[in-house]
């Protein structure tokens, strides 16, 4: 099977149809949010503070939603108008969205962001979509301007799908030249299914975190344990946007209330069915 980035440029590949299909696919939702959780963990942000973050290649906001939930403010960049305008806006994500090609670099004031995440995006920068595109040049431009937009100290965590070791090498090398420390973190390196690669970049001197060990079965259990720990930690945070662990229902009620304050039309009225799990129908 070919990789999407080899089929067509991102803004074409993620047209209206694909953007919708991508976002409503429950398997994709689950995987993206799992990887986002891990990326947020690797960011290692100070616990009790709402941060200002960048979501690079934010798409329809699957990753950004978790930043909302963790009480952070974020700016999302993406090159696909369909992902942004058709899907992210429809889903009312909270972040500020920009239509931007990350290979052209950022223009943010130095030290603006407390951190950055990027989920399943970086591999797109390795493809030259036009004859004027040079992947090494675009990577350099991207990493240099990102480095300056981040504050010292901070981190940028990228989950990505390289297609070769050469690609990994090219990416880490350009990041280093741009001034970043850090390196590659591989979770579950021995499991074919659960193996995931994260590029964990650092501004200022910091130690590289370790990957999660073990096979998938073990790792699942491990994952659950990490999850409860993480949730406990998150509960401790105070003063953010959404602090307490909320039940699905509370969350839905809050969102609905927000929409009502904003005068959105057609917000369903609350009933005993609100936020109930739907039975899966075949």
């Amino acid at each position, binding site marked *: 099977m070919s990789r999407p980035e080899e089929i067509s440029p991102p803004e074409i590949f993620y047209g209206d149809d694909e953007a919708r299909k991508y976002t409503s696919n429950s398997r994709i939702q689950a995987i993206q949010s799992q990887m986002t959780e891990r990326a947020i963990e690797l960011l290692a942000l100070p616990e009790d503070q709402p941060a200002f973050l960048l979501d690079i290649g934010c798409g329809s906001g699957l990753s950004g939603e978790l930043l909302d939930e963790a009480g952070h403010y974020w700016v999302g960049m993406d090159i696909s108008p369909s992902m942004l305008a058709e899907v992210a*806006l429809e889903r009312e994500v909270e972040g500020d969205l*920009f239509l931007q090609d990350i290979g052209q670099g*950022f223009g943010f*004031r130095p*030290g603006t962001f407390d951190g950055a995440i990027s989920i399943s995006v970086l591999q797109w920068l390795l493809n030259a979509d036009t004859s004027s595109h040079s992947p090494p040049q675009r990577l350099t*431009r991207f990493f240099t301007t990102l480095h300056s937009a981040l504050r010292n100290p901070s981190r940028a965590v990228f989950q990505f799908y390289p297609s070769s070791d050469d690609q990994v090498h090219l990416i880490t090398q350009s990041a280093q030249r741009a001034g970043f420390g850090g390196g590659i973190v591989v979770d579950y390196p021995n499991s074919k299914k659960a193996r995931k690669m994260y590029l964990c970049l650092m501004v200022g001197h910091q130690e590289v975190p370790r990957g999660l060990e073990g096979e998938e079965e073990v790792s699942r259990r491990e994952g659950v344990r990490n999850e409860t720990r993480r949730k406990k930690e998150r509960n401790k945070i105070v*003063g953010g946007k959404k602090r307490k662990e909320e039940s699905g229902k509370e969350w839905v009620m809050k969102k609905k209330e927000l929409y009502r304050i904003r005068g959105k039309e057609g917000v369903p009225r609350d009933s005993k069915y609100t936020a109930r799990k739907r039975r899966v129908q075949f």
Partner: protein
Amino acid sequence: MLVSILSLFSSPQFRENCTSNNFPLVFSEVELVVRPVPENQEFLKRFLPKLEWRALVETARSLGNESLPLIQPETLTDDQLKALHHVLLELHVEQGNMTCKGCGHVYPISNGIPNMLLAEHEVGR
């Protein structure tokens, strides 16, 4: 939204040959909306040092919001914090243009999304 717009461009050369006088971007032909979000003083206090007060106030005034004083007060009153929250996080430019004073380039905003795409030959170095 202004929280991110006011984070754009001071010295980095985003667009080729655009190196000076490129902050803040100037709005024109705007259509505004207000989207209430819960207040978070902690975030505001942490963001304040990164902010150029005068640029914030001038931008807010250009959008018809006069709630903030031109000179930055040493400590903000509760009312001023409320006003700051409103201007930075609740006020959104749905449609309009942002013009760079330095190079004259216009970045259009549609559906609240600024279009920052450059032609290949315009990309900075």
